[in-house]
């Protein structure tokens, strides 16, 4: 039985070395075997899945997966479903700012096969997305979203930091999902996978950009 040390979101993470390190050699061999009609080696398989995330769930049907993420894998392998919740954990920053962007779905949800229920979740929980795209893209989603996202939002992630974005609010909810989207769009990597690989600095480095409202009162420039 295969025991990957990461959840299925790895299929949206654009770093093949991380795939190999976290999925394990046996999983990689099985992946190449199952996609050999479209790819000959791991690099090609990774590129094919990154460009067509909907194909991953179909290709892995019938696979037996255990390990710490077995529940996510079983759901993904048997029904092509991935939970829409945010995965990354962001250090707390007091923040009462509000962003009028309704994006309460993780980019990982792109791996879920588009059934009627999944479409409803996209429309309902990620309503803002459909101001920028007409439908959920099934081919090269990273490129499509990089073009579609408004520049002011992308800039917000870079200038104020992903952590700051994660603790802003949409109504009474935090924008943790949105922070994942901005990180993914900027780097092509999933923040929680980087955290598993102990690249915490890469994930949280923009936390330094975050302004603390209380600090502004203390340090008034003369």
């Amino acid at each position, binding site marked *: 039985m295969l025991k990957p040390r990461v959840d299925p979101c790895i299929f949206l993470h654009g770093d093949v070395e991380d795939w190999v390190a976290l999925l394990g050699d046996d999983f990689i061999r*099985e992946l190449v*075997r*199952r996609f*050999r*009609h*479209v790819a000959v080696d791991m690099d090609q398989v990774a590129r*094919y899945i990154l460009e*067509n995330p*909907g*194909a991953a769930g*179909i*290709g892995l*049907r*019938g*696979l037996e997966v255990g390990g710490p993420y077995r529940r996510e894998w079983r759901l993904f392998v048997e029904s*092509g479903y991935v939970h829409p919740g945010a995965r990354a954990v962001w250090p707390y920053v007091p923040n009462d700012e509000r962003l009028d962007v309704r994006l309460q779905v993780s980019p990982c949800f792109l791996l879920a*096969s*588009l*059934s*009627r229920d999944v479409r409803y979740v996209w429309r309902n929980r990620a309503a803002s997305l459909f101001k920028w795209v007409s*439908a959920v893209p*099934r*081919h090269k989603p990273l490129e499509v979203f990089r073009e579609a996202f408004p520049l002011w939002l992308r800039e917000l992630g870079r200038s104020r930091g992903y952590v700051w974005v994660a603790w802003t609010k949409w109504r009474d909810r935090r924008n943790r999902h949105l922070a994942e989207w901005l990180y993914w769009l900027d780097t092509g990597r999933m923040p929680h996978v980087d955290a598993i690989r102990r690249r915490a600095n890469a994930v949280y480095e923009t936390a330094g950009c975050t302004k603390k409202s209380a600090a502004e009162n203390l340090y008034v420039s003369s």
Partner: protein
Amino acid sequence: MASVLREVETWLGEGWRMRWEMPQRGVYLLKEVYMAEPSEASSYCRGRDSFVVVYIVASLEGGLDVVYGRVKPGVLGCPAATFTRRFSRAETKAAVRTLIDFATKVDKVPLFQINPDVIRFAGLCDEYPLICEDPAVVINRLSADAPKVRRQVEIQVKPETSAKSSLWLVEELARILRDKLELDGGFAEVLKRVIEDPDRLRECVSRHGRGYV
């Protein structure tokens, strides 16, 4: 019933085995929205002995079954016949192509009812761009290719090939309209206009249809 099954068997050819059962589980070739509910099918076949629901299953090694059938899995009050054949992973393209051919040629299913994720997984998007791409992208590509292809047509290809491809596109359009009509009565208006002025549609089709020669 027997004649239908014999026809299916003949069309599929060697290597397929038939069983009186529903497919176990798998990925369906058609989009969920275009498959009938089992209760609908059951009410349709009640009192008719000749009615049988046919499933075609391409069973790929490693546990992936690609299933073509027009009724969703569930409790079905009709006889269900499942034709199955095992394929190796290297034959994935051929297996999925067989199911698409059966769906489009025997059952006359319009291409857009096919689940694009299955076609993407099989790597058949180049062969079936209408399934994978957004309609706007297909039309843009056709109009971009049109002048180049037209030149090639003038030099090499016989005119009957061009006519054949236009005919294919007209047939596809007719299928789409028929299907839309079933889902939404408002499309009757579209159909009426096409019937009133078929030349307009023909012009449009011949302008875009050459991209497929």
